[in-house]
């Protein structure tokens, strides 16, 4: 009986740990740099951190995407934010930022990673298909189609 209770406790602790890792609060930073642009695909480097390695990649990619959406990438062909007048709290963007974003990432490679006491840090080279992303946002009525 005691064994079963311990097992349940261990499972509960593990589940709680996983859940806390999954819900680790993401905060956008400006550590993105334009690398190149080919056609409608923009490639940028994005630096971010996370408590676990599996969340780290997501944070780097989301950071790249959020910078394209809400801030614009300096010295690139996408200097203006793609979305005006909305931010990451907009409910219409929850699906995109949590899961759908992966559809628009054509390439993602980690070029550098380090670990300190609490966090993993990484630099990820991320390529994003801007035309497909714009179409997605237009269909979701987050941005207007080009025009008056």
């Amino acid at each position, binding site marked *: 009986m005691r064994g079963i209770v311990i097992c349940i406790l261990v499972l509960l602790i593990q589940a709680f740990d996983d859940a806390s890792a999954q819900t680790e609060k993401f905060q956008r930073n400006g550590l993105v740099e334009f690398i190149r*642009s080919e*056609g409608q695909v923009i490639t940028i480097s994005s630096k971010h951190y996370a408590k676990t390695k599996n969340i780290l990649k997501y944070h780097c990619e989301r950071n790249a995407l959020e910078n394209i959406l809400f801030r614009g990438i300096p010295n690139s062909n996408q200097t203006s934010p793609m979305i005006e007048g909305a931010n990451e709290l907009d409910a219409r963007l929850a699906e995109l930022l949590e899961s759908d974003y992966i559809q628009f990432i054509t390439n993602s490679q980690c070029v550098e990673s380090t670990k300190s006491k609490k966090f993993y840090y990484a630099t990820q080279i991320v390529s994003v298909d*801007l*035309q497909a992303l714009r179409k997605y946002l237009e269909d979701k009525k987050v941005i207007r189609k*080009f025009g*008056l």
Partner: protein
Amino acid sequence: MRSFLRLLFTYSIFSITLTAQVNNRPVVQPTIMVVPFAKEGERLRTAYENSEVNRIAITKVKEAFDKRGVNTIDLIGKLKQTNNNTALQQEQANETMDQVVSLSGADIYVVVEATRKYSPTGNSVTVILTAYDAFSGESLANKVGNSPLIYTDNFDKLIEKAVETEIDNLLNTLQEKFTILLNEGRSIVVTIGVESNTVLTLEKEINDSGDLLSEVIEDWIKANAFKGNYHLQGVTRNKMIFDIVKIPIHTPSGTNYRLRDFTSELRKYLRSINLSTRQTVQGNNVVFTLSEGKEKE
């Protein structure tokens, strides 16, 4: 702290409502024409035919508009159409930028100027892109794209690179300006003067309350300008100039609001206060000349 949170909440609701308002409106595609840079008095056809770099740059810019789902008016097609119009054949020698743009019916025109640069460290191309509102002549977006310096004579590729560096930014800036136009309206200039050989002045009391003609006209402009947004530059006995009067882009039913809609309403109002008018419209400038008494039907 509580009042700060309340303020934050109100702001969020306001900005979401504003975005929703803009996004829920039907999108009307502007008609766009891409033209080569032409010097004062130079024919557009000559500017187009004489510069290969400009032709390639124009094609790349048109391609970018196509990718955003916007059709462009073809310059050569439009020139042919203009020349086929017998009424205009006498003016064929004057296919200047202003004439072609005004005859094309384009809402926006984009002027493209591409130049080759030779240097010992490689060749490059610079492309200047300027988008204008054909209605007001206002510049909406300006970008300069440079290709990298490369040891090559393949200028087609260099032009492509130069256009690619800035075309998305040009389109994004244009879209930002469109959103501002939707929210704030277009600016027109309204000048109201009185006929030189009449005793009528703008200081004449025109009703029992003792309101001056200039005051009632200003009240009408205030009530009919988009969101009540206007600016009165000055009033004299004979003239009043509104250097900014905002008019909407769309009517409430979603069709295009034309300048004629505004001038027609103003003319009817002036007629209702027993004034006859002559009006001249050029671009976004409207001039009304007033005299006493209604015109004959």
